[in-house]
């Protein structure tokens, strides 16, 4: 007998899946791929394809509803789960199950993945729409306070601030046309609090959330809307995506920046305007921050040593050495390790007490490493070495070894930092039930959406070859 507690989320999920399926179906109709779906039932009719597609969408949506209910996902966290859920079904559906059902080889190779890139984008739209509609249908789902006008204005201010910074840094200084960022930044800044609410969170998790949000913005505003507005039709082809890669780093940095500035502005507003100290931080930053800084430096050094293997084998150290006007690999190694420690310290500042197990340490570390590939490897390193940001397909392709190094660096950084923190001040040992409740609440909030963010980081990283290879 089916439990009533499962029926409601499954039904809501199915309805939301239908909505997501409608969006995805419209895109498939525009792209002309519905007959492929119809081939599952040995047909080539568009109507049959749409019917099959909607049936699958409702079923998969019901699964999403059950998953969200089982994981107690909060309203503001559902969007990322929807995105990762859609991405997961791209792997399982078009790349794996559909070929098997049709008796064809698995589509796991890069050429097929590139050919199926429109399907990936469609699946992400499906997941996002399903999540948003599910939230709308299930208003009883727990979540934080709803955003107010002030929060929305804070988001706009954050968007404009980051857009201005990127514009001043890379349009005026490096000659990359970024005037469009002001409009996108305003809209993205407005959308951030509307989607995720005004709740307080740590700066580090916010930055990772913002990076994923930036990727979502790129898909919508960078990849989907321009051809739709210009030609009245979608163009999610690999070629179109490859040309849109030029703007992907800017979107990622914009998203991360919006999340950070939005969080900091919230903290500043609380510090200035809130007179009830209970609403402010209990622990002063200096109380344990210095030890955390040392841990961050040590963890960063470890990650830097791991990264050094890649740097040495691809002969990238001389490029790093140019940051200080030198050319010798030894100087490059020293500079690289110093930078690794500085980033490690920043990781400690941003992610202190946000790792609750080794998996979450690695998750935050890998995500932070990816963010630094965009900010450091693609942007700051070439600029500081006298060049331009590598914000194009060729530059991203050339920097792929650096992506590998940054991910390995992040993994080592997050894992070592978690171990050091757990050794010195483990989160799971508390002096009172009150403190335990507070920490459990923090853990639940932090890990509520974190796995989806880590998964999205992995998805973005593995999408890079799809976008730029060939």
């Amino acid at each position, binding site marked *: 007998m089916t439990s009533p507690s499962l029926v409601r989320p499954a039904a809501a999920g199915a309805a939301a899946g239908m909505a997501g399926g409608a969006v995805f179906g419209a895109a498939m109709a525009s792209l002309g791929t519905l007959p492929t779906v119809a081939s599952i039932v040995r047909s080539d009719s568009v109507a049959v394809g749409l019917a099959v597609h909607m049936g699958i969408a409702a079923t998969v949506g019901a699964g999403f509803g059950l998953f969200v209910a089982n994981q107690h996902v909060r309203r503001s966290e559902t969007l990322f789960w929807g995105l990762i859920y859609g991405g*997961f079904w791209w792997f399982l559906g078009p790349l794996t199950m559909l070929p098997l059902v049709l008796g064809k080889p698995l589509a*796991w190779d890069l050429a097929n993945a590139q050919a199926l890139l429109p399907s990936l984008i469609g699946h992400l739209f499906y997941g996002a729409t399903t999540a948003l509609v599910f939230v709308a249908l299930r208003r009883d789902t727990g979540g934080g306070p709803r955003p107010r006008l002030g929060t929305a204005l804070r988001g706009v201010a954050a968007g404009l601030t980051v857009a201005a910074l990127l514009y001043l840094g890379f349009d005026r200084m490096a000659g990359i046309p970024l005037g469009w960022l002001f409009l996108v930044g305003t809209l993205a800044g407005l959308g951030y609090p509307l989607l995720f609410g005004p709740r307080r969170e740590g700066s580090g998790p916010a930055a990772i959330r913002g990076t994923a949000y930036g990727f979502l913005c790129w898909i919508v505003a960078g990849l989907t809307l321009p051809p739709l507005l210009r030609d009245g039709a979608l163009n999610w082809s690999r070629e179109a995506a490859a040309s849109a890669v030029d703007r992907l780093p800017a979107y990622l940095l914009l998203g991360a920046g919006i999340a950070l500035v939005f969080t900091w502005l919230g903290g500043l507003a609380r510090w200035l305007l809130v007179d009830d100290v209970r609403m402010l931080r209990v622990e002063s930053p200096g109380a344990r921050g*210095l030890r955390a800084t040392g841990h961050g430096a040590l963890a960063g050094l470890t990650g830097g040593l791991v990264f050094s293997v890649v740097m040495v*084998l691809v002969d990238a150290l001389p490029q790093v050495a140019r940051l200080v006007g030198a050319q010798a690999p030894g100087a490059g190694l020293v500079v690289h390790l110093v930078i690794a420690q500085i980033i490690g310290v920043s990781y400690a500042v941003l992610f202190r007490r946000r790792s609750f197990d080794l998996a979450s340490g690695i998750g935050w570390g890998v995500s932070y490493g990816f963010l630094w590939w965009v900010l450091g490897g693609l942007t700051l390193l070439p600029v500081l070495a006298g060049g331009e940001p590598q914000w194009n397909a060729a530059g991203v392709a050339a920097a792929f070894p650096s992506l590998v190094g940054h*991910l*390995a660096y992040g993994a080592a950084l997050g894992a070592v930092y978690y171990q050091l923190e757990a050794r010195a001040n483990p989160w799971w*040992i508390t*002096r009172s039930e009150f403190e*335990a409740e507070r920490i459990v609440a923090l853990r639940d909030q932090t890990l509520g959406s974190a796995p989806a963010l880590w998964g999205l980081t992995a998805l973005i990283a*593995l999408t890079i070859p799809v976008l730029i290879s060939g």
Partner: protein
Amino acid sequence: MSGAANFGSQSRRELPARMGLAGWGAAAGLVTGLPVGALMGYQGMLADRGIGAIPGWGPFVLYATAAGAAIGLVVAYRPRGLAVAASGGVLIGLLGWLFFWLTLDRVLRGQTPTWSILAAAEAYPELVADLLHGGLTGAVVHGLFSRRARRSRSESAPPESEQLARVVIVGGGFGGLSAAKRFERLALRGAAIDVTLISDSNFLLFTPMLAEVASGALEPSHISAPVRAAVVHTRFRHGAVEDIDTDGRTVSLIAGSAPAERIPYDHLVLAVGSVPHFLDLPGVQAHGYTLKDLNDAILLRNHVIGLLERADHMEPDPRERERLLTFVVAGGGFAGAEAVAELFDLTHGVLHYFPGIGPDEPRFVLVHSRDRILPELSAELGAYALGRLRARGIEFRLGVRVAEASAQDVLLSDGERIPTRTFVWTAGNRPGPLVATLDGEHAGNGALVTDSALRAARLERVWAVGDCAQIPDVDLDGVPFPPTAQHALRQGKVVADNIAAVLGGRTPAAFRFRTLGLLVALGHRTAAAEIRGHRFSGLAAWLLWRGIYLAKLPGIEKRLRVLLDWVLDLAFPRDIVLTTRYPTESTTPARPAAPARPARPTRSAPDGQSR
């Protein structure tokens, strides 16, 4: 662990348990690798993946097993952890792809890894397979461990908290706090202990700088570190232990006005330090100032400033004026030498505020029973200190003792009577009075005699460290260790290790330590130090003193505050604000005739050996 709440399933796992996790993870990785690998093999994706004689599926099986082991180590049971586990598996899959297929596989084939976009494109099927495998393995591992955790919860009879050994530490000084810190570290390594620290002061007092508080050079709270901040995972009880029942293994805690509470223990660590010992000399306890805790230092500073205020205008009687401006310190050890030097600096440092007092009027006298001061240091350094202090005008009465004290003067054993309103007693200490209530074996000074492993003689499950214990040095034929802070610190660590050893069925180790060095500050830019046989004096020793003790001060915050105090001291005169009501509170030590409370844990040694 000593916390009230402990998420037991998160505790650090020992090596065998970690091996078990890896083993289960490897098995799960192999199981989930089978369908993924079979699918790849069926599709012909593994045909060209062989290395030498190893067939194409070999590397994938190797990868699946290794990745599974890594996922087993990384992904442990969580109450809401399916998503975390699966995501962790996906991340391990991504990293495994980077490490195995883009790196190790290339190396095994004799190629140099390039990590280029072309290499990534070539290995893209493995990336998809690894992410799928990782996610599945993470979910399976989570299922395995959540099932095991549920089973262990239902089968294990008593809750974890009931299995913890109860350790009670009495005293929050260097020894007690050091033991608590060590217990925290041991608990993180899996020791099943529940630690309660009891102290009647909720901070650790850094006694080497106490004289500077008395002289107004440092703020009182800057040389004190809160116990709760120092041992964040230890249960702390602010109160005094009234008595100890070693048969019933309980201590009686008095906290505020609440009735006495009996706290049970399995092992008791006594670190109650020492209290001033007045040798039953008439009037000494009633009229002598001591320098053992913050209150003493604040009281003494206010008293001196108050006397200067009186002497400046209000005192016409020359005899009384002499009393007001004469400062007598008894004891030529570290505490006495530092006290007289700091009183000298304080008085002359603020004298410009008091135009009615001539620069030659203040008189400082140090009384010491031996023929040279600072007997812990070499004769040369003792003579150096004596010479420097004498050169400033400080008088010494060597080879005589204080015989009697009154509100008017101090009588010495040679019959000399020194008129004074300020008499500082640093010439004797004894273990905290709580020690005397125990049945164990006591040394001549009342300290609890222990064996070399810090176990109190003739007492079951009672351990003692610091000034309240007499601990034989096995390397020196049982000669007791000196009661210094550096010894107490290390004894605290050893006693925690030894208790953990006993709980684990192992033999406790003997305490072994050689004194690192001795430093004494002699006032303005001068000190004497002896470190590992090397002698320092003058400005170099003073810089050494400040550097070493600043580094030893607990907590970066306190270090910064003290450093700031010292820097400000260079630019501004010392404060002469009286923080007590004049004149009643500032002119008497306000000490009862007999100790009314158990010992405050302090760290000074007999005859002022406070290092």
